[in-house]
């Protein structure tokens, strides 16, 4: 019996993953542990193992597609088995559960902290590569997994009437929900259909059974008419019935037919070309679509600056004691395991302690509410080849300096390797970002919303200060750039926190006792 492999649910906050690369092709023999593909969340990359042994019957999405979690990505079964049957059954099951409400439930859980596994939606697998087996009694329906698309009832009705596949629409409603306006926008772009062509499109979407003449490919296998040509051959470019059938057959010739055509959320006329990256002319500029992690960063950064009142304060303090201590760590017996403690680790340590005293800095602003946390989950910005990542040291306030140091090393390495778990990338209550190691003297960090503050660690520079004898001496000073959300934190309280930090840095040895 064919088994459906679904996009694994990666942690509790990941809604969808991008298929980066398929490691198998249709017809390949796989074992349960065989990696099927690499998928990328907004923060990390994972492998999806097959989960069952068998023959890969169908890969449902091309590389580069963003697929919602728990949605089918492949079908594995015995050679010669019909993959549609397995899918049809699965779809039906989801329908009865009501995918929209399930989705809504998920969304409500997008809280700051990881939800516990017990709260997960019943029946939904929590592990990587969950496999759902199919049973025969259910009626097969459309082979295209389209029911996950959030769409208003009005828009759905309209789309059905006008033969618009919902996955051609980009939603402009709340949370990307497709509303009637989106259907109208699509219809404006689509050339008009003749009455018969419209009927054929609607029929092909509503019934899975083959119809004479149209919608059959060479092998006789039914194919849903998901796309329409950009122009038809009828009056004024109207799309005629013949245009639909010839479009399907020409697509079949030109395109890789292993994927359902038009499975894309990029808009009506996504061509194969658009998916190739990057695109460049012989001497022209290089055009790279913004997607994956970069797209997430782009959205978050914009959202951060667009929704908060950011205000940055700069200060600096003597790093003499920290540098001395760092030297001592380096020279300490290896058995103690302190040799790799860095200046940044020491700042993380101080911040994790200080925040307990300045809890208004260890907070989230969510929907007109300020949530102040009693523990410190410290985010640390890590630069990776794929972009910025912010892993979280959980309960940093309860960790010793060496524990914080070890956690920081482990998380940074996992980010660089692309093996970081999405759960390690969510739930921070305060973030530290460090550009000092590359010589930046001061900068304006961007808030990691919904956090209300972020600390930028700057370089250590020699500064002239008045020495004990009244003469001018040079002392190494470390700089700090603290950005706050002025909506909820005022300048003076922020400055007090910064002042306390500077003092703590200068008296680092004392803080070691805490």
């Amino acid at each position, binding site marked *: 019996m064919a088994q459906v492999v679904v996009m694994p649910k990666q942690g509790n906050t990941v809604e969808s993953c991008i298929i980066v690369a398929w490691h198998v092709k249709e017809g390949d023999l796989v074992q349960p542990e065989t990696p099927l593909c690499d998928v990328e969340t907004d923060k990390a990359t994972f492998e999806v193992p097959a989960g069952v042994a068998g023959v890969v019957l169908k890969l449902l999405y091309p590389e580069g597609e963003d697929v919602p979690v728990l949605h089918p990505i492949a079908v594995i079964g015995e050679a010669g088995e019909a993959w549609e049957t397995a899918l049809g059954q699965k779809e039906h099951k989801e329908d009865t559960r009501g995918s929209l409400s399930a989705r809504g439930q998920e969304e409500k859980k997008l809280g700051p902290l990881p939800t516990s596994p017990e709260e997960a939606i019943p029946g939904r697998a929590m592990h990587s590569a969950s496999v759902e087996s199919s049973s025969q009694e259910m009626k097969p329906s459309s082979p295209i997994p389209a029911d996950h698309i959030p769409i208003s009832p009005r828009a759905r009705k309209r789309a059905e009437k006008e033969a618009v596949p919902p996955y051609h629409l980009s939603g402009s409603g709340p949370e990307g929900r497709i509303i009637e306006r989106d259907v109208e926008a699509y219809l404006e772009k689509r050339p008009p259909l*003749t*009455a*018969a*062509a419209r*009927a*054929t499109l609607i*029929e092909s979407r509503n019934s899975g059974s083959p*119809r*004479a003449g149209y919608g059959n490919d060479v092998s006789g296998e039914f194919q849903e008419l998901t796309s329409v040509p950009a*122009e*038809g*051959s*009828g*009056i*004024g*470019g*109207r799309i*005629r*019935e013949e245009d639909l059938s010839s479009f399907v057959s020409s697509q079949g010739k030109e395109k890789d037919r292993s994927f359902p055509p038009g499975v894309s959320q990029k808009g009506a006329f996504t061509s194969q070309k658009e998916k190739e990256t990057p695109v460049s002319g012989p001497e022209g500029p290089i055009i790279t679509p913004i997607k994956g992690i970069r797209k997430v960063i782009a959205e978050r950064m914009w959202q951060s600056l667009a929704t908060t009142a950011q205000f940055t304060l700069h200060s600096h303090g003597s790093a003499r004691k920290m540098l001395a201590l760092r030297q001592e760590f380096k020279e300490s017996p290896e058995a103690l395991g302190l040799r790799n403690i860095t200046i940044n680790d020491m700042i993380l340590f101080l911040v994790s302690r200080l925040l307990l005293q300045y809890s208004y800095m260890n907070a989230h602003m969510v929907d007109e509410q300020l949530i102040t946390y009693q523990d410190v989950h410290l985010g640390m910005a890590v630069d990776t080849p794929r972009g910025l990542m912010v892993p979280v040291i959980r309960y940093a306030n309860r960790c010793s300096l060496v524990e914080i140091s070890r956690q920081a090393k482990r998380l940074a390495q996992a980010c660089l390797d692309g093996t970081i778990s999405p759960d390690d990338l969510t739930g921070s209550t305060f973030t530290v970002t460090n550009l000092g190691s590359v010589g930046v003297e001061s900068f304006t960090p961007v808030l990691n919303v919904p956090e209300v503050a972020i600390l930028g660690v700057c370089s250590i520079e020699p500064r002239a200060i008045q020495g004990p004898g009244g003469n001018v001496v040079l002392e190494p000073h470390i700089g700090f750039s603290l950005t706050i959300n002025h909506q909820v934190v005022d300048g003076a309280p922020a400055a007090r926190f910064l002042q306390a930090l500077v003092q703590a840095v200068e008296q680092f040895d004392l803080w070691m006792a805490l």
Partner: protein
Amino acid sequence: MWLMKEQNKEGKTMSDFDVIILGGGPAGYQAAERLGSNHRKVLLIEPQFLGGTCLNVGCIPTKTLLHSAKLYLHSREAAAFGVTVEGLRYDWESMQGWKEEVVTKLREGIAFQMKRAGVTVIEGWGRLIAPPQGTEPARVQISQGERVGEEYRAPAVLVCTGSVPLLPPIPGIQNNPAVVDSTGLLGMREVPQNLVVVGGGVIGVEFAGLFSAFGVPVTVIEMTDEILPFMDRELAPLLRKSFKEVDFRLGCRVEKIEGNILFYTNREGKGEQITADRILMAVGRRPQIGGWGAETVGLDVRSQGVVVDEWMRTTVPGIWAAGDVTGRSLLAHGAYRMADVASRDILAYLEGEGSGRGIFRMRWEAIPWVVYGMNEAAGVGLTEQDAQRQGIPYKKVTVPLKVSGRFVAENGFGIPGTCKVLADPHKGRILGIHLVGPYASEIIWGAALILEQELRIQDVRELIFPHPTVSEVLRDAVWAFE
């Protein structure tokens, strides 16, 4: 793209025009008007009269005479409708005069249209002497009678040389004063005492109807077993029966003509003969594919016409063809549409849009046809025979015109009238609409629209047809489907 002046300065070849059109018939003058209105320099070369076969010796003169014939016939039969006409007679000479007036007026209208569109019209015979090559324009030479005249150049040439009556190789038709073609018959000084028509196509049937209305005994000799071979086999006999006075001899093969006597073999294979004052040769028309340089420029020309694609492009870039010369549709309205398509493509070509093919292209399957007479027939789309031949599934209905109030009021029950509709058996998409009855010619454009729009039975049911009209039969037909 075509920098005429610059090229001239450099001493290179020069384009006198943007487009040269060979032939001033429906395709030629329509294209000239379209291109000229788009501010293109157009040269139209026509050897005789603007308007071509259609206006001068075809559609228009026959319709003029048919109108006179209808008036005469209706007057003769008016008693049945309570009107008595005394002293009824017809005057062929006056009819000819009226016909000339109509044709001249319309021809002047075309000339004015050309002037308004800035089209240069030269009377003469145009001949391609070189195709366009690279930036070199095509060259066309004009001859007037014996005199070989000017040479003109243009980057684009549109061939609309039309068609000529086909004269079959029947012994005794050459140099026989009794044998005429349609042009000859139209120009006759007197009505023939009796007429034999060879060929039961559109032309033969129209002339048969025309002269039989004046009481001239008419015999139609048709080789196949029914007239109008393109018509639905269910409807063609109905139309044939409308010509009550015409003697149709079907399945008969003409063997020879000796003077006024025509010898033929009948359906049973028996030799028969018939004597006639005039014998009309109406076996069809053939595209005018010779005499204008097709071979010189290397066009692909078959016996059925110049080969063109859906954008009316010939096999030689820079040369288009439209109208009868393509052999695709020997109808003036087909020619108009071909001219529109060719003009659009030529404009794109001149603007340097290269080989991009627009959505504006020729669709051959929804060209309506019309047969005129005392009764009319018209159709568009598939006939039942077409569907059977092509293996296309269909369902059909046939509704008599007796359901139409206007039809009965104006015609009684004496003349046949029928509407037949073919549709896809599953989806109900209309595949063909065929009519026999008065006004059929004026109704059929709507049927073409239904086909072009791919409307289904249920869609046509939503249309509102004016009452009382003959067109209502179409509504009744779509409601007659189960």
